[in-house]
């Protein structure tokens, strides 16, 4: 495992192995094998784009849904959490401390889509005792990237 490589990739998944090698003062071969090893053991799970869907016509609708779940003997919340994870509509599933048990984010094309998914799929899962759905109105930051900020940081083009 190489934390420095991970940090660079976390900021910019498109950074080439050549650039990573240069930036960290490593051999190219070393970088390539470190990355494939981290992919193999599942430390690196994928390389996705950060997209501001609000700028795209017919943008998607997302909601955060708080679930209360009755844990099962032996399995706890695992079984329900993994089951919910398998829906393609579901973007993330997390076990929470506090009032609710699971937080699920769901993406659909319309408000109605998402509502229907919650009512017909999530709410009826065995063990789920309640759902509370909150629709996302606007995103300001995603994956550490500020979606509303503009390029210009006020530094100008040249200063000595």
């Amino acid at each position, binding site marked *: 495992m190489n934390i420095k490589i991970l940090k660079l990739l976390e*900021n910019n998944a498109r950074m080439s192995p050549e650039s990573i090698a240069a930036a960290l003062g490593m051999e190219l071969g070393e970088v390539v094998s470190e990355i494939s090893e981290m992919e193999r053991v599942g430390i690196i799970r994928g390389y996705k784009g950060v997209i501001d869907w609000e700028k795209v016509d017919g943008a998607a609708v997302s909601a955060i849904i708080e679930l209360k779940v009755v844990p099962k003997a032996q399995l706890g919340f695992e079984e329900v959490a993994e089951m919910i994870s398998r829906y393609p509509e579901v973007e993330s599933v997390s076990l929470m401390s506090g009032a609710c048990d699971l937080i699920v984010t769901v993406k659909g094309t319309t408000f109605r889509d998402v509502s229907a998914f919650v009512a017909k799929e999530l709410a009826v899962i065995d063990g789920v005792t309640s759902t509370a759905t909150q629709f996302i109105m606007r995103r300001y930051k995603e994956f550490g990237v500020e979606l509303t900020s503009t390029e210009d940081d006020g530094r100008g083009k040249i200063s000595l």
Partner: protein
Amino acid sequence: MIDYGKVLSDVVQDIKPSGIRRFFDIAASMDDVISLGVGEPDFRTPWQVRSAGIRSLERANTRYTSNLGLEALRREISEYVRRKYSAKYEPLSEVLVTVGGSEAIDLAIRAVTNPGDEIIIPEPSYVCYEPMTKLAGGVPVIINTKAENNFKLTPEELSEAITEKTKALILPYPTNPTGAIMEKGDLEKIAEVLRDTNIIVISDEIYAELTFGEHRHVSVASIPGMWERTILINGFSKAFSMTGWRLGYACGPKPLLTQLMKIHQYAIMCAPTTSQYAAIEALRSCDEVVSDMREEYDARRRLTVDGFRKMGLECPEPKGAFYAFPSIKSTGLSSEEFCEELLYRKKVAVVPGCAFGESGEGHIRVSYCYSIMHIEEALRRIGEFLDELRAEKTTQKAK
């Protein structure tokens, strides 16, 4: 009509505006420029520091502070400088908080200079030392440091520049624009030359937090025999990404500091109060943030240097600050021509080395205070530009 030429001070009028003003104007007028041209961090001031500034405003801590600066801040500075650079200063009489490192440099030069005194300035270096010396009535004596010495100041060069009129040496390391540093051994050799003289060292250590590789910055004040002749200058702009807060400091033996203080007291009163409260927090809680930023700069530094070397340009390894200083002599263009062409053809802005003194000619200053994505795109365009230049040269030869 007033003849302004007769009204204004001769000294001021004789000071030239930056030699590359034309280039600046062109860059400013162009849109969509990708710049590697600025001398300030892209990182934001750490949140806890901004928050401390806001808190001080909420509490209405908005009055003048002591002329020297808040006592709590001077204590922190004294502790910080001792902890980081092994230089000991009494917080109540040997530390002065200033409006950026810039003010401290001005104070130091003015405090030691009598008319006609010589101030030695190694170049290429930041542009303020020469005009400030002239404004103080001094005579700048330039040492052109050399690329083959990694732009370090050598004891031979220093000895040669010293005359009986020499009053002070400016020691601007780590250096803007070259990224050069002076390691302990280098400083010891300089100390050897100065130890039995009355020459004062004005050590501008504003980039001290930004040195890369194995060795952290060594302050000349920590070299035996140098403390008593050194005015150590540092500030918050580069290390803590606090350029706009305008806060720096000078440390030195009491008899020197007392004189700097007099000028500061009459010209400035005190450094901005809000910034002083914020700076206390910077010194107390930002070690980790600073080291994270240093690590990020280091990755960008390697990437930038590697990029230029792959393009076939000589690029000495910068060991400090946040600039690379590759040589463009192989293109046959002057540094200003190179930068202008690059700007017109590829819309990339870098600074001609000649802006930092004659000895900077033939180099360009490339700032890596930008995201890796931004740096890579700029390097790609510079690479294209070099390919074009080479192709044009070959065609010309063929003709």
